[in-house]
Structures are given as C-alpha cells and as structure tokens.
C-alpha cells in the first residue's frame, strides 16, 4: 500500500516571522506613501505657480512695454488689495489703440481688453502690486507678484515671488 506523502505546512515560527515582516511593511507604508504624495503635491504646486509667475510676469511685461506712458492708471478693484490693477492704452499691430487692464480679483489674475469681462490669466495669486518708484517719472513701473498655493491639508505652502522693473517705451 502506498502511504500518501504528508504535505509539509509552514511552522509557527515561519508564520510569525512572515507576519512580523508584513506588519513592519504595512505600518511603514502609509507614512512613506504620505511623504511621497506630499512631496509630489508640493513640487507640482511649486512648478505650477512658478510657471504661473513667469508666464504672468512676461505677459504683463510685454503688454506694459508697449503702453502709452501717459495713459497708465494704477488703482484696484473695489475691496481688492491696493494697486492691484493697472490700465493702459497700447497700439495694436494694425495701428489701432486698445485699452488693456490687468487686475486681481480674489486670488485670480485677470486680463481685460477694451473694458470687456476679464479673461483669467493665472490662479493662486497672493499679492500683486504695480508701483511707480517715483510718481514723477512715468517711464519706470515696477511689478511685484506673488503666487501661493497651499498643498496638502494645510501643509507646506509653495511660494513664488517675482519682481520686475519695466521701462515703458512710448
């Protein structure tokens, strides 16, 4: 008669070792994942607001360079931070004049043309101020802009501040 071979199971020791290892891995995993998640959130946020800042600045800069110096008005939307709006006239390629306005409304940067409703340029705007270093010299305007985005549940905030002086050419 053939004796059926006994199937060899795991010993208690082996099982406990496996459970212990699994336990360690399982307890460490959420923290690791959390860290990776936060990191990626933060770097994505940073990247995005930096991109925003650069794009917004160069957008404003390009527009402002072509402005008619005498037409520039700096003020703000009602209830918005001081001097967060700039309005000016500029020549279009076809020679006609258009009135352009960059302004902050809430945490959004808008661009409006000819008084129409503004188009959104960027989110996460924390601070925007247009200043004349000296109000009797209308050829230099300084733009200071800060973007901020809170990331993971009130965790670290990504910040990007940029300052640029623009010479108004006309």
């Amino acid at each position: 008669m053939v004796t059926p071979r006994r199937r060899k199971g795991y010993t208690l020791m082996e099982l406990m070792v496996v459970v212990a290892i699994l336990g360690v891995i399982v307890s460490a995993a959420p923290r690791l994942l959390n860290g990776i998640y936060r990191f990626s959130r933060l770097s994505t946020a940073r990247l995005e607001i930096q991109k925003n800042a650069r794009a917004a600045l160069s957008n404003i800069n390009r527009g402002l360079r072509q402005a008619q110096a005498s037409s520039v008005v700096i003020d703000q939307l009602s209830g918005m931070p001081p001097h967060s709006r700039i309005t000016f006239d500029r020549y279009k390629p076809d020679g006609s004049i258009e009135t352009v306005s960059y302004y902050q409304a809430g945490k959004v940067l808008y661009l409006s043309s000819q008084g129409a409703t503004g188009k959104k340029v960027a989110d996460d705007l924390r601070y925007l101020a247009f200043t004349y270093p000296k109000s009797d010299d209308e050829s230099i305007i300084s733009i200071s802009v800060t973007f901020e985005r809170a990331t993971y549940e009130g965790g670290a905030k990504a910040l990007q501040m940029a300052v640029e002086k623009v010479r108004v050419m006309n």
Partner: protein
Amino acid sequence: MGLMSRVLKAYRAAAGGVSRAAGSPRPGVTLVELMVATAIISIGVLGMVGSFNYINRGIQGPKGKSLANNLAQEKIEVLKNKSYFRVLVSTATDFDHNFDPNAYEYDVAPNGSETMNVGGINFTRRVLIKKVTEVSGGGLARFAYTVPDTGLKEVVVYVSWLEGSSWKKVELRNLLGNPNRTNLGAAFSGTVLEAGTGIPIEGAIIRAQENPARYDITDAAGVYSFACEPGQYTLQATKPGYFQSVSPLYTIETTQVHDFTLTRMVSGTVTGSAWLRDHLVISRIVGSSVNNSGYYQEYVEIYNPTTWTWTVNGDIGLKFQKAGGEKAAIGIDLYIRDTIPSQGYYLFANTGTVSAVGANVDADATWDENIIPVVEDGGGEGSAAVELYRISDGRILDQVGWDRNNEGKTAPFYETDGYDQDIGLQMGETFVRHPSAAGANSFYGPAYDTNDNDEDIEGVTSAAIGTPPSNSLSAAKPVLTGTPAAGALVFANDSLSSSTQAALSGSFSLASVATGYWTLYISSGVSLSTGGVYGGTASGFSVSAGSVLLSSDTAFGFVSGRVTGTDGAGLPGIKVAAGGRQTSTLADGRYILPADPGEQTVFANYQTDNPDYIEISSAGVVASLGALTPDVDFVLVTGGKLRGWVTTNGTDPLPNVPVSAFKYGIEQGNSISGNDGYYLIWGSGISTGTYEVVPQLEAGETPLPSTHTVTLSAGEDLFVGTFTVSGAMGNLTGSVKAGTAGITTGVLVYATSSTITGSPVMPPTIDAAARAGSVIYYAVSSNAQGMYTLPVRGGYTYNVYAWYTTWPNDTPTVTPRQTTATVAAGETVVKDFSW
C-alpha cells in the same frame, strides 16, 4: 499536419502530464523564495523612488536657468537705465574659482556682488564692466580702467548658483555707447623706416601717449594709420632692437602725417661662467694606511666653499659603502670641534691625530674602527664610496665613489661616474678634489664639483701630495669655482639682447647685447647674481664677465623695462611696483623689478610717488621664477590731482556721487564722493591740461554749477570747487513682519511728503494727473526676504504707509500701517513695520 496542430498537440501532452501528476503534492513557495521575491520587488520600488530625484532635478535645472536669466536681464535693464558715465567701470576684480578651470572674472569694486534668494535658490549676481573699442575684425579690444574713455563700455552680467553639487551660471553681455561720444574724427598716419638703410620696419608700435587705446602696428611696408579723437597727442614708435622715437606734440583736428626713422641698436657679446656654491664637499679621502707610528689611520676631509659657517656636530655625518657591502653611517664617537668655517675645512678621522706629509693634524671628529678598506687589505677590496649628508633629513650634500676596474667592481654610488681606478684605493693613496678644471693648485680651496667624480677627483700618492690634510683650525683658502650653474638664465638690462642659458660647464655667451654698459643678471631659479656691469661701445664688442658666483637666494621672477617721458628721455628715480614689491628706475630710466612668480600688474610711478607724473600700469605681465620678462616699458605723462566737494546745501556732504573729469570731451578719469562728500580724481588719466569736471547725477538731481573748468599743471593738487546738488536722493529701508516672522509675500510701501486720507487708508489712484501733480509718491513692494528699500528725495519729512493683505478666506483683508520719517540726502533711514 501543419505546424499549428503540432504545437497544439505538444501543449495538450504537457497539460495531460500535469493532470496525471495531480495526486502528488504541489510544490509550494518556500520562505526563502518569498524573501528573494520581496527583495527583488523592493529593489524595483526603491529604483522608482530614486527616479523621483532625477525627475525633480530635471525640473529644477531649467527653472534655475530661467530664473537666473530673468535676474541677469533685470540687471542689464538697471544698468542701461543709468546714464553712460554712471555705469562705473570695474577697477578691482576677482575670479570665481567655483568654475575652475573656466573661472570668470567679476567686479569687486565699485559695483560688487549681490546675493538673492529667488524660488528657493540662492543666486549670486555679478557684473564686469570694461572699456572697449571695436576692432576691424569685428571683435572687441578691452582696455584697463585707467585708459581714457573709449566711448564704449562692455557690460557682462553673471548670475551663478549651486544646483545639486555643481555650479551653474548664466552670462549676459551688452554694450553701452556714450551718446555724446566724440567721434574718432582725426587720424594719424605715416611710415616707419630704419635709419641709414631706409628699409621699412614691420611690427613697430605707434601709440598716442595721451591715450594708449589709440595705436597701430606697422605693416610690411612700414605704414601705420589710426583714428583718434581730435586733441593733442605725442606719438611714440617702439620696436625691440631699435632705439625708440618720439614725435613732437601735435594738435590734431583732422589728419596728421608723421614719419619715423628708428636707429637700430648695435650689439656685442658678453661671455663668462656661472657657479653655485651652496653645499659642503668631500675634499680628501684616505683609506686604511699605516702612519709613522704603525697605526692604521684613515680620514675624510671636508671643505666648505659657501660664505657661511656650518654646524657639523650632530648635524653633518658620513656614510660609507663598499662594493658588495651595505650602506651605513660611520659612527662618530666624538665631535671635538662643532663647526666648519666658511672656506675652511673639517677633518673626520679614525684617530685623534692624523700624521701625513711630515705633519701631525688634529682630527675634528673621530670614529674608532677601520672602515675604509684598501686594496692591500685583500679580499678584493678597493672599490667603495663615501657620502656626506645632513643627519636631520638625510639630504645628500656630496658623494664620492671609486671603481676597481681590474676586478670589474663599480663604486656602489657616485655622482655621474665613479672615479676610474684600475686597482682601486691603495694604501698610502689620497683621493683629492681639485680647486678648478685646471687641476691641483694648493693655493685655492678644493671646491670644483661638476657632479662627476671621475672629473673632479684625482688619486695622489703620499709622496706626491705635498700638503697635509687640513682641519677646522687650518687657514681658509679662497674659492675659485664651485658647482657649475648649468642651465642658469643669463640676461642683461639692455632691452636688446634676449636671455641665454649657461652650458653644462657653467659657461655662457650672451649675444646681441646693445652697445653701452649694462647690468648682467644670472639666475639659477633659486640663486641670483647681479654679475656687475659689462659692455662696450664698439659694434661687435666682446667682453668677459669671468667666473660669476650665484650667491644670493631668490624667490622671484624679474620684470625689466624702461620708463620714459613723452620726449623719450629716460626718467630716473621713478617707483616701479608689482604685487607689493618695488624698485626705482636708474639714471637712464631702466629698471629690473623682482616680482613674485605669476601674473602681475606692473605700475610705473606707483601711487603717484612722483606727483609731477601720472601713474600707469601694465596688466597681465607674467613673471616666472628666476626668469626675465623684458620690455615692460612705460611712458609717463605729466599730471596732477583734481579734488573737490559735493554737498546738498553747502553744509551737508552728499556721498556716492560719481564725478568725471573730461579733456577734449573725453572722460579721462572719475571718482566717487566719499562719506564726507569729497572726491579726488587722479591716477593714469589725469595728465596736465584743461579739464571740465562734471558730477554724474540721477534724474531729478541738479548740480550748481553744472561744470567746473580748471587747468591742471604738473604735480598740482588742484581744488576744483564745490558742487551743490539739489534734489538728491536718500533711502528708506526696513523689515516687514507678521508677528516675528518676515513677510515673504509682499507688502506695499508708500512714502509721500503729503498725507494720504480715507477710511480705510488706501493709496491714491496714480493716473496722468497724479503723476503731473506737485505731490510726489514713492512706492515699492517688499521682497521675498521681508525687506524693502525705497529711494526718496532727500531733505524732506515723509509719511510712510504700508499695506499688508491677508486672505482669511477668499476675501482679502487689507491692514494699513503708518509712520513718519525724515530723510536727508544720501542718508538711509530704517523704518520697520509689523502686523
């Protein structure tokens, strides 16, 4: 049956196999296999996490670059916004060695470096501003800051930052032209010919001495021409091998022709030989020899050709090695006398008294065994070597080895070649060193050491030797030779001859030495001799400098040249300096300046030591240790100093105002008023003549008077006058804080001499009417470091307002702060704000 069905059949067979084995236990996964699998998976996971790092760096790279680009552009804009003369040329520079070997040069003064943190990266922003001119090839020629204004400045902005562990930089260049520049409306031209023969001289440099940036080099036809600003100039023609020539002072409006004839320098030859005496030598060796009393005496005599006394006791020792033996120090058991005098002797012996040639000589130090064997000792002895060394560090001073050729035995060590002996060192034989190549001469000290034992040493029998050995009490003997200074550099200050090198024997022949009498220099790199004055008046003269000893130590390179006035005459007693080392010119204006090896800036009339002349410099002169850098010539122009005062109201000084001095409409020099408001313009550009002195002010500032016109005479220290500047600026600066932390998001700051009203207080709308109004508003946003700096017109009391916006939800809350500040011109007032 096709391929497909065959494969299927095989598969079915395999599947059947499995099902047939179903009764036996399936092999499970063992713990080891599981762990291996886990390990492999975790390697994969770790790799993925690691790649985050690379992705992040990939993102950071372009970000750093574009931020740096913005910063560099901003600086260029700021500089271009300034008036031409307010863009100050770099006067002191340094190199950023983080970028070695491509270190870039940057301005240390007067512009300096800025550091700033943008987007979490620390950037360093630097500039380098140079005077340049366009050259015909399309490139730029750059000039020292001391050269008069060229009408064109090159601005280079560098922004560097650390990315990971490597340094990165962005570099932007721009040119600034002087809008009011004087055109190069005038031109000099002419030919340069050799006197007597009339042959055109190619490669002669013709330079306007009043503006070294205006020059030309003659072509193959000897023709030169160059453009310059209308004005007064003296031209100088120089070419190595020719006496220089100088033109009269021309006042040029359009064109001027001036031809030069240059006289070729006539030359001769100076010969001689160069010697070094820097170490003790072994002058006699005697092996085991029976003296009168039947004692086996042996001794080694040392001679000191140097000019100083050496301590022997405990400091100098002997080593001995015979052919086939071990090298070992000879154990001195008693030093009787401690020192060896200059040009004197010292006697090591294995006996207290050496008897030879009918005399008894006391040993200076003794050992007590028979160490140096002779042929007569048998056993194939007779070839060996003795070494003189410094005990402290084992440095070898001298070695003498001798062969025994009949047994094919070579000295165990030697200099170049062991002393060739057929049967080796014999009893009664003395190995002596010669005083010179001419052979034995008992009148001179045995100092001849060509580092070749076979050349320098001779074996003499005791009958023929003539003189007994000497000890430290014996009379000193004069030195004739020494060690030949092979390869030593030989040069003279005649500015015609180039340098030559001494041969292996120490002899040299310096050809093409100009007629006249010149100082001869011989340098071995570490030792130097100014070998006296030699020369001749006839063409083709030949003089001998004899044996020249290199005795003084040197750690320098040498720069030579001539300092002349604009008339071409040599100027005596002019201080020439480089890197803190100085010398004065001789009667004919020539100088030789010992300079630290490396690249040097050489100054003539250093620190305007002679106030009748201006200081000029030559940058990038390379001095190499022991070598000569010739033809660093200078032409000094008479000059003086201009000084004056800048004030806001006649009482208070106004610092940091650049003041320029113009001659013929060209800026010759500038200076910045100090904290006391005084400025001093002097140095290379400020020659004698009539100057217009003009302060370089910011927009909105007005000077009274606008210009001082003065005439400066040689050596004069002239007070130009006072500029009263109205409308000058001061600074408001400070920090902005929320609680204790700096606000990094930006705060709007306004300053005005009027009052801003309203509830809440908000800044006024700035439109064309506001800008044209009499009330001026100054405004700035604080930076990412929580600081602000606001330039305001000096001499007023300001109301200063600051607005900080917070976002408790999506609606902004603006909180103003207000204070007052009184700012004087040139003053910086600190006002901090907190919320």
